[in-house]
């Protein structure tokens, strides 16, 4: 059974602080995707990383894929209340087609 361990599960910070969310697994992924999900809605894609060591930036968000393609991180700089939400990492396991394995999610709350 493939597992993707995501941490922390909950994070409450003040506006302006930095934070990092981690996803780790023993499985190798052909790609790893980060999603954000609002209550009552489906996950919305933030970024897809496919190459080991790849770093992608999306405004104040920085995504990194581990060299061995087993782990990833999401770093948010100077968090804002609008960043509040559920963040999910999801990996496509190598040689298992398009099936995604999701982490448990990180519920982020940014207080003004």
């Amino acid at each position, binding site marked *: 059974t493939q597992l993707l361990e*995501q941490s922390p599960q909950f994070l409450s910070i003040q506006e302006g602080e930095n934070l990092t969310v981690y996803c780790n697994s023993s499985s190798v*992924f*052909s*790609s790893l*995707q980060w*999603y954000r999900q609002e209550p*009552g*809605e*489906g*996950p*919305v*894609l933030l970024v*897809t990383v*496919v190459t080991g060591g790849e770093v992608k930036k999306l405004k104040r968000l920085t995504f990194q894929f581990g060299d061995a393609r087993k782990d990833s991180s999401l770093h948010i700089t100077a968090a804002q209340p609008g960043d509040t939400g559920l963040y*999910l990492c*999801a990996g*496509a*396991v*190598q*040689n*298992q*087609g*398009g*099936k*995604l*394995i*999701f*982490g*448990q*999610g990180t519920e982020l709350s940014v207080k003004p």
Partner: protein
Amino acid sequence: GAGVSQTPSNKVTEKGKYVELRCDPISGHTALYWYRQSLGQGPEFLIYFQGTGAADDSGLPNDRFFAVRPEGSVSTLKIQRTERGDSAVYLCASSLGVRGGKDTQYFGPGTRLTVL
């Protein structure tokens, strides 16, 4: 529509009843996925289709769950003899292809199923 749509958005049923959940993928997307999300958890894979055929149904919990995609577009997830433990949000996603897992999956808003 431009995105993945799912109907109904909410379904309340009684234990033991049969339900069908529908997914309309993005036009032209050949791959379609079903996931289930329980409260406070990440989505859990159920099944995916490449065209009309189920390429991987390893996530279906038991034989009460079945899904079809007869024409390679719309898909229906069918649950027989529903149980209270089936209550969850059922999410559908589609992607242009599979490409070894590198094609982005786009999710619908989900169907919230409540079994009383």
